């Protein structure tokens, strides 16, 4: 049993609360990805789990054992740092075997464990070299190898790929995924890269300002964000938000209306608190906006800019008087994602369409009002049998 349980973790630096009441239960063999904007407390959370930072209140259980007051070395965890943190004066093999050596294991056992880890990561050829003789990617492998050698219950990764170039990052991402399946350990992985979060996680923990905004599978968070922050954070390009007003509220549905946008009737869930006249915000993902005018609702717009990415294209649309708030380009343009084969150019007039079923509704505080929808996208990584 390698599960990890965090109960009400709180951490303060002086007067600022960096982690506020974090609760998380990671089942055995789960791949938890922690994401959030810079400075939200991801690294601090990871260091608290590792025991590198003491927490002000709360409890940490690893494999059912309370390790809150234990030294990092006694917690049965291993950590991979963004800066690799290899010991420069030791060879690769010594680096990888250091943890076992500190644990007082016999030489033969250490050698075996190092060899096994080196084989998994294909770094056998570098075992006698020093870290400075290796490239960034190779160093990162060694750092991961150092973690594997100790066969811990829980692996902690703090943005392990952010120092690598794009191609290498993709390769290592796939490799860590494979490694996870092979090692069958619990992993907590911090990143600010959405692609890493969406593709690797069995569950995502989305943090903001030291609090957990939502925990769930990637698809769950993507299709049913609990609030506007989650909706805006996941997905690239990000969701379009448009200010509007509730003009009609009935049981299970609400109608919104604003200048330039036709009245839209939306399903809302039972606990949604909204009254006629309330300021609300609707959200529409770029892929839900169609440039061919198809859909329940239409509005006319002018193309502000097309970003051609080959397979797909991103269109920035000036749909005045409809303006997106917090828009990607700061001009209030709506963002639409379409097929890369479009022939539209800048300044062309288009009729854009969308379906009411794709629209999200948030109240003034950002809470989601629309009812949950079924996730019909298949992008979830294989869930591990618990």
């Amino acid at each position, binding site marked *: 049993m390698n599960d990890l349980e965090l109960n009400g973790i709180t951490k303060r630096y002086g007067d600022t609360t960096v982690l506020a009441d974090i609760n998380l239960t990671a089942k055995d063999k789960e791949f938890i990805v922690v994401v959030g904007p810079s400075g939200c407390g991801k690294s601090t959370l990871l260091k608290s789990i*590792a025991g590198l930072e003491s927490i002000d209140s709360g409890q940490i259980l690893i494999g059912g054992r309370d390790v809150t007051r234990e030294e*990092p070395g006694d917690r049965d965890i291993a950590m991979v*740092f963004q800066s690799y943190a*290899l010991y420069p004066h030791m060879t690769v093999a010594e680096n990888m075997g*250091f943890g076992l050596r500190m644990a007082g294991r016999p030489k033969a056992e250490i050698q075996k464990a190092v060899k096994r880890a080196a084989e998994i990561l294909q770094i056998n050829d570098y075992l006698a070299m020093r870290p400075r003789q290796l490239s960034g990617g190779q160093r990162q492998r060694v750092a991961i190898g*150092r973690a594997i050698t100790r066969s811990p219950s829980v692996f902690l990764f703090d943005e392990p790929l952010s120092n690598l170039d794009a191609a290498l990052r993709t390769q290592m991402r796939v490799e860590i995924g494979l490694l996870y399946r092979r090692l069958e350990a619990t992993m907590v992985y911090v990143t600010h890269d959405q692609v890493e979060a969406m593709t690797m996680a069995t569950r995502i923990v989305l943090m903001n300002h030291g609090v957990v905004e939502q925990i769930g599978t990637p698809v769950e968070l993507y299709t049913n964000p609990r609030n506007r922050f989650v909706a805006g954070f996941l997905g690239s390009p990000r969701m379009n938000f448009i200010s509007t007003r509730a003009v009609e509220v009935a049981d299970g549905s609400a109608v919104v209306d604003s200048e330039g946008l036709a009245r839209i009737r939306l399903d809302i869930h039972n606990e949604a608190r909204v009254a006629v006249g309330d300021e609300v915000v609707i959200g529409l993902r770029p892929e839900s906006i169609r440039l061919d005018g198809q859909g329940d609702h239409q509005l006319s717009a002018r193309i502000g800019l097309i970003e051609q990415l080959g397979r797909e294209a991103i269109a920035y649309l000036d749909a005045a008087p409809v303006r997106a708030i917090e828009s990607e380009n700061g001009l209030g343009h709506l963002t639409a994602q379409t097929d890369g084969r479009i022939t539209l150019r800048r300044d062309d007039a288009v009729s854009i369409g969308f379906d009411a079923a794709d629209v999200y509704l948030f109240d003034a505080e950002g809470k989601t009002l629309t009812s949950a929808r079924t996730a019909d996208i298949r992008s979830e990584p294989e869930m591990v049998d618990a």
Partner: protein
Amino acid sequence: MKTLWRRHRCWLWPVIFLAPGVILFWGVIVASSAQSLAISFFRWDGFGPMTWAGLSNYVELLHDPQFYTSLKNNIIWLVMFMAAPPLGLAIALLVNQQIRGMRLVKSLFFMPLVMSQVAVGVVFAWFYDPTNGLLALIFKAIGATAPALLSNPEWVTVAVVIAALWPQVSFCMILFMAGLNNLDESQIAAARVDGAKGWHMLRHVVLPQLRQVNFIAIAVTVIGALRSFDMISVMTSGGPFGSSNVLAYQMYEQSIEAYRFGYGAAIAAVLFVVMAVFIAWYLHRMLRMEREGA
């Protein structure tokens, strides 16, 4: 004129910038060393005419028991001074702990550095004073009589070296404190996760990162031991009966007090050779370390 400058400025600039250093180095260090070496082959009282003496100054030195006492004392200084880097490191590790009031302790350890060597010598001379010194009071408190350390030929050098160690330890402490501030935090964190604690952390993770600082501390300490002069001058003037003398002080004594510049210069030459051996080793190590670091 302008074109001349433009054509030659690629080598003129370096020359202009290097000139002050080169002139000073050759004038003050190289030329006077050479002159002093030359003087060692003469008999000279500093005023009158110089008479050629050949190697006789060196021959006399070889038969001078005081020379061997001084050399032996220099070795005692060197050996005892080697305690300064580890002590400095220990104190640096201690005051590096985040405990309340450590700032005050830190500044207390800085104290001997701001005092001049002469002041330190005077303070320790009082401390050792067999009738009213602090040491005497301590001995009195436990019902014993204090030894007169500074007039005991057996112990005098050790007593002086202990006084000289005080500022030297502080100096090493500051070097190590700077080094400890520059430790790679993530390496320490990684080692903590790897289960390294206490001695193992120090030995396998901290000390390797302090290698450069450690090297500088040792080099500075060796040089400090070999050129020891002011403490001896203030505390004992080499006495009693030359038993606390060292080469640097003996050279001064012979030249300035006994008006035997030739003989003093010969002592200086020997000291120079001892230092040169060390400096060659130092430079060799430093170059190798730089090459490895690159």
